[in-house]
C-alpha cells in the first residue's frame, strides 16, 4: 500500500500537468493559434539557451521558499496561506537590518541577514500559530488577514520611514555591498558555463537548496519533525502519546514562516538589493500551488518550483513571438492545481488510503 501511495504521489501531478497542457492547447486552438507552435516557443524560451535556463532557475528560487513554507505547515496539519505576508516582513526586516548595520563585513553581515529574513517571516507566522494554539482561531483566516496587514505595515515604513531620499519610487536605499549575494554568472563562466553577466541568477539558489535539505531533515530526522508529522496525521492520537500540541503548532508555523521569509535572500540580497513596496505580486500564493503540485514533500516542491519557473520564463517568449498572451500560463497553472487536487482525492479513495503522510 505504501509503495502504491508513493507511485500515486508521482503519477497524479504528472498526469495533472499533462492534462492542463492539453486544456491550455485547446484554449490556444480556440483562438486560432497552433498549440504545438506555442508550446515549442514556450520550451525554447525556457531551455533554448544558458541564459534562459538561468532565468528558469532564478524564477524558481522564490517559489521554492514559498512552496516549502506551505508544504512544511501542511505536514503539521496547518494551512499557511500567509506566505505572502511573511515574505514581505522577512524582506523588509532584511533590508532594514542591512541598512542599519552598514559597517559589518560580508562574512558577518550575509549570514546575519539570512537569519533575520527567516526571523522576520517566522515572527509573522508565529502570531497566527499562537492564536490557533491558544484560542483555536483558524490559521487560514488569520494568515490571510495578516497578509494585508503586512503589505500595509511595510508600505507605511518604506514610504514614511525608510524611503530613499530624492526618489519617487517607494523603495529603500540600496543595501551595502557587504550584504549582497553575488550573481553566479562569473563563477559559472570560470567553470565553462557561458551564463551572461546580465543574468540575475544569484547565490540565493544555494540557500534554497539548503532550505530544501533543512525542511527534509527537520521533518524526517528530528524529534520535533516527528511530532509535527504526528500532529498533522492525527492530533488526538499525538496528544494521547504525550505530544504538546500547542507548542508543536506554534513551532510548525514558526518554521514555515521562516522559509517564506527567506524569499528575501533572492529578492532583497540577490536581485533588487533593496526593499520595494508591493514587490511580490503573489509569490506567496504561487507557493501554495507549488506545494500542492509537489505533494507537500521538500523534493516535490523543488520539481514543482522548477516547472513553474520554466512556465514563467517561457511565458515571456509566448508574449513576444505569438498572438497568445502570456496569461495563458496562469490558466495552465491554475488548471494544474485543480486537477492535482481532484486527481489526488480520486486516487486516494481508489487506494483506500485516507492520508499520505
Amino acid at each position, binding site marked *: 500500500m505504501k509503495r502504491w501511495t508513493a507511485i500515486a504521489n508521482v503519477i497524479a501531478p504528472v498526469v495533472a500537468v499533462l492534462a492542463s497542457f492539453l486544456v491550455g492547447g485547446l484554449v490556444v486552438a480556440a483562438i486560432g493559434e497552433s498549440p504545438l507552435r506555442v508550446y515549442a516557443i514556450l520550451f525554447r524560451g525556457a531551455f533554448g539557451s544558458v541564459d534562459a535556463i538561468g532565468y528558469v532557475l532564478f524564477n524558481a528560487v522564490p517559489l521554492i521558499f514559498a512552496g516549502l513554507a506551505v508544504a512544511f505547515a501542511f505536514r503539521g496539519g496547518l494551512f499557511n496561506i500567509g506566505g505572502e505576508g511573511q515574505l514581505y516582513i522577512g524582506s523588509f526586516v532584511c533590508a532594514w537590518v542591512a541598512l542599519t548595520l552598514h559597517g559589518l563585513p560580508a562574512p558577518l553581515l550575509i549570514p546575519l541577514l539570512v537569519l533575520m529574513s527567516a526571523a522576520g517571516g517566522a515572527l509573522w507566522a508565529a502570531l497566527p500559530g499562537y492564536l490557533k494554539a491558544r*484560542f483555536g482561531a483558524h490559521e487560514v*483566516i488569520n494568515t490571510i488577514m*495578516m497578509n494585508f496587514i503586512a503589505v500595509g*505595515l511595510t508600505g507605511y515604513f518604506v514610504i514614511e520611514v525608510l524611503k530613499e531620499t530624492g526618489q519617487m519610487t517607494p523603495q529603500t536605499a540600496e543595501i551595502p555591498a557587504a550584504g549582497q549575494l553575488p550573481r553566479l554568472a562569473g563563477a559559472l563562466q570560470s567553470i565553462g558555463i557561458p551564463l551572461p553577466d546580465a543574468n540575475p541568477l544569484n547565490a540565493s539558489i544555494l540557500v534554497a537548496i539548503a532550505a530544501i535539505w533543512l525542511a527534509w531533515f527537520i521533518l524526517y530526522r528530528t524529534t520535533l519533525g516527528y511530532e509535527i508529522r504526528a500532529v498533522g496525521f492525527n492530533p488526538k492520537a499525538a496528544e494521547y502519546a504525550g505530544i504538546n500540541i500547542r507548542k508543536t503548532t506554534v513551532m510548525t508555523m514558526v518554521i514555515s514562516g521562516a522559509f517564506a521569509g527567506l524569499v528575501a535572500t533572492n529578492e532583497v540580497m540577490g536581485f533588487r538589493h533593496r526593499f520595494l513596496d508591493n514587490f511580490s505580486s503573489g509569490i506567496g500564493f504561487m507557493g501554495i500551488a507549488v506545494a500542492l503540485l509537489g505533494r507537500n514533500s521538500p523534493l516535490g516542491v523543488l520539481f514543482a518550483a522548477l516547472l513553474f519557473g520554466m512556465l514563467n520564463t517561457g511565458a515571456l517568449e509566448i508574449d513576444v513571438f505569438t498572438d497568445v498572451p502570456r496569461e*495563458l500560463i496562469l490558466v495552465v497553472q491554475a488548471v494544474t492545481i*485543480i486537477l492535482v487536487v*481532484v486527481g489526488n482525492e480520486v486516487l486516494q479513495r481508489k487506494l483506500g488510503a485516507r492520508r499520505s503522510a
Partner: protein
Amino acid sequence: MFDIAVFDAALRMATPLILAALGGMFSERSGVVNIALEGILLTGAFASVVATWYTGDPWAGAFAGVLAGMLVALLHAVVTVTFKADQIVSGVAINLLAAGATQFLMWVIWDSSSNSPSVAGMAHWTLPESWGGFARVFNTVLGHYPPLVYVTLAIIGIAHVTLWRTRFGLRLRATGEHPEAVDTLGVHVRRMRYSGVLLSGALAGLGGAFLALNTHQFVKNMSAGRGYIALAAMIFGRWNPVGAAAACLLFGYAEAVQMGLQGQHVPTQFVQMIPYVLTMVALVGVMGRARGPAAVGKPY
C-alpha cells in the same frame, strides 16, 4: 469625516462587499468554505463588462455577472462537494484561475492587458420632475444611488428571512452544523451544499458586476482583495446576514475615510488595516468568540 458624502462613498464601497459576504455566508452555512469569493467577484465583474459591451445594456451585464459567478461557484461545488477535495485549496486554485482567465480573455476580446474599454453604467431610477412632488420624493429616496445599491439593501432583508424564517434556511443551517443528522432525516446534503455554494456565486457575481459597472469598465485584478474582506466581514458579522452587512458598511466606511485622507499627511495604511485587525480580534474572541458552523470545511 462624518458628512453625507463620506456616507455615500461608504455605501457604494460596501455594496459589493455586502453581496459577496452574504454569498460567503450562504456557502459556509451549508458547510462549504468559500475562499473563491475573490475569484467570483473578479469573474462577475469581467462578465458584466463583456455583456454590457456587447449588448449596451448594463442590466444584461448584471445578469451575466450573476451567471458567471454561478458558473465559477459550480466549479467550486463540483471540486469540493462531489469530489470532496479540500475546500480552501479549491478556493485558492479558483482565484488563480479567475485572475488568469480574465486577463487572458481581456486580451482576446479587447487586445489589452490592463483594462476594458468604457461601458455604460446603470442609470439611476428616476421619475420625470413634471410628475410633481411624488417624483421629487422618489428621486431623492430611490434615485440617489445606483439601482444595485437598493437591490442589495433588499437582498439583505431577503437573506435574513431566507436563513432564519424558511424551511430552506433551516435545512441549510442544519447541513452546516450537523450533516449526518440532516442526512438521517432525509434531506439531501449534497443538494443543500450545492445550493449554498451556487447562491454564493450568484450574489458575489452580482457584487462583481456592481464593482465594474460602477466604474464603467473592467480593470485587471479589480477585485483587489475585496473577496477576502467580504470573508472577514462575514466572520465579523458572525455568519448572520444583518451582522455581515453591518460589518461591510463599517469596512466600506473605513475605505471611504481612507480615500478621503489620501493626499493629506496621514498614514492611510493604518486605516486600511482596520478590517483585518478587527477580524482577527473577533476570531480570538475579545468581545465574545466568533464561531462558524460546526461542520464547515468538512466534506460529507
